[in-house]
């Protein structure tokens, strides 16, 4: 066993994993917050109210209006945890438990400084690497060893993160963030639709692979800064390929080999609950179908955003559809994108036996055993 290599995880992968960890822990907060607010707003709209967050509705004579006002408040409370949680768990991924507190506090500061997701990202990374450094450098005599994790690291780590955020990077990050926000928010008409189409196409391209994740993660990150169009585009695009391909197998069963008929049922179901990966068996069986996936996802995404649907939650499954502003055009856009894919897939699945692909869709990475 002399061949065991000791390779260090590349910094790129470490950063990517850290950010994904942060986003992963942040998701339930956004979902809870966005859906509660969605319920409050749909409920309020039945009473003709479009500003349920206004304090005046808290005093309303109507019990339901008061209730919806409170629901909106609960949702807002959940959303206020977004930046602290994402920063905390980015730090946690880098330096484990001791980094959690400095990361979360840095994230809250980022939130207060108006630096948005960018600031939280920086705060999390700072906290992670500061704590990692402190943990490696601080050598205490055995009798005092427990003072490190329970006193020095939380206090020192937090202080360092806050000082750097507040006096060094806070200002520039906050201007960068508001510049980015203004640019994206000012996007209108054609630009907005092109952006949505690009995001949609990226999401449909590799179904949960790196291109898809890059687009989805960026969209979710912008969500934390209150920019909803990229998220709307991504959430529409996620479910279009599995639904489109799945439905094609249900309608034109004979066009597809037997194994894909089975996969099609699963794919339809996975599509409705918001899992892109259901479409993978089709892309493996005939990679050309990826072209159709990209076109269908891009069209659906561009249509939803262009027609003014706004999805504020990182949810693509059907249970999130009603909470979308403009849910009707949103669902129609999904239907149109899926129809494009269902019909387009028939170009490539003609009912003739498809030869098994000679090699996997992508080359296998090098797997190295380390100790």
């Amino acid at each position, binding site marked *: *066993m002399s*061949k*065991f290599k000791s390779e260090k*995880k590349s910094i790129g992968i470490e950063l*990517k*994993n*850290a950010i*994904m*960890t942060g*986003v*992963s822990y942040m*998701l*339930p907060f956004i979902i809870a917050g966005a859906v509660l607010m969605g319920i409050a707003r749909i409920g309020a709209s039945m009473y003709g109210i479009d500003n349920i967050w206004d304090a005046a509705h808290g005093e309303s004579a109507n019990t339901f209006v008061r209730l919806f006002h409170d629901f909106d408040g609960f949702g807002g409370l959940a959303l206020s945890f977004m930046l602290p949680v994402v920063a905390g*768990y980015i730090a*946690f*991924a*880098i330096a*484990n438990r001791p980094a959690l507190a400095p990361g979360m506090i840095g994230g809250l500061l980022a939130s207060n400084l108006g630096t948005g997701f960018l600031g939280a990202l920086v705060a999390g990374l700072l906290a992670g690497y500061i704590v990692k450094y402190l943990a490696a450098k601080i050598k205490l005599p055995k009798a005092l060893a427990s003072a490190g994790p329970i006193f020095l690291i939380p206090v020192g780590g937090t202080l360092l993160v806050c000082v750097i955020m507040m006096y060094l990077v806070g200002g520039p990050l906050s201007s960068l963030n508001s510049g980015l926000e203004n640019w994206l928010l000012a996007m209108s008409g054609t630009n907005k639709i092109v952006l949505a189409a690009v995001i949609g196409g990226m999401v449909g391209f590799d179904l*949960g*692979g790196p291109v898809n*994740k890059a687009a989805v993660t960026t969209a979710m990150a912008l969500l934390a800064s209150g920019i909803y169009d990229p998220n709307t585009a991504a959430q529409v695009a996620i479910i279009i390929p599995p639904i489109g391909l799945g439905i094609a197998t249900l309608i034109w069963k004979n066009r597809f080999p037997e194994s894909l008929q089975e996969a099609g049922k699963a794919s339809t179901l*996975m599509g409705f609950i918001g*899992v892109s*990966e259901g479409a993978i068996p089709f892309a493996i069986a005939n990679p050309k179908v990826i072209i159709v996936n990209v076109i269908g996802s891009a069209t659906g995404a561009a249509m939803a955003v262009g027609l003014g649907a706004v999805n504020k939650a990182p949810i693509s499954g059907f249970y999130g559809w009603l909470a979308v502003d403009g849910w009707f055009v949103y669902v129609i856009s999904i239907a149109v994108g899926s129809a494009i894919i269902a019909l387009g897939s028939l170009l490539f699945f003609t009912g003739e036996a498809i030869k098994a692909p000679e090699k*996997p*869709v*992508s080359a*296998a*990475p*090098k*797997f*190295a*055993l*380390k*100790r």
Partner: protein
Amino acid sequence: MFIVCIAACPTGVAHTFMAAEALEVKGKALGLEVKVETQGSMGADNIITAEDLARADAAILAADVAVNDVERFADIPKIECSVADPIKHGDELFEALIKEFN
């Protein structure tokens, strides 16, 4: 041979469990004993214990997020890879692992 594995993905509902299944199926086909701990959105399941680790020969950590309690695997030969790798490249993954032991 006994392989302990972790599967963890950012959302913790789909890839985690697809990877776990792929690891179990591929491992079984190769006549290996495999135990996969899934760290999904409902927390850890089928947790790898100290006893498991004591008799494990190697570990596969298939994760796109930070693995909880990763220190457990400090003293065991391991392959770290993306959560998608066991699903897409399971054969190559086990090949690389077994090669080192023959």
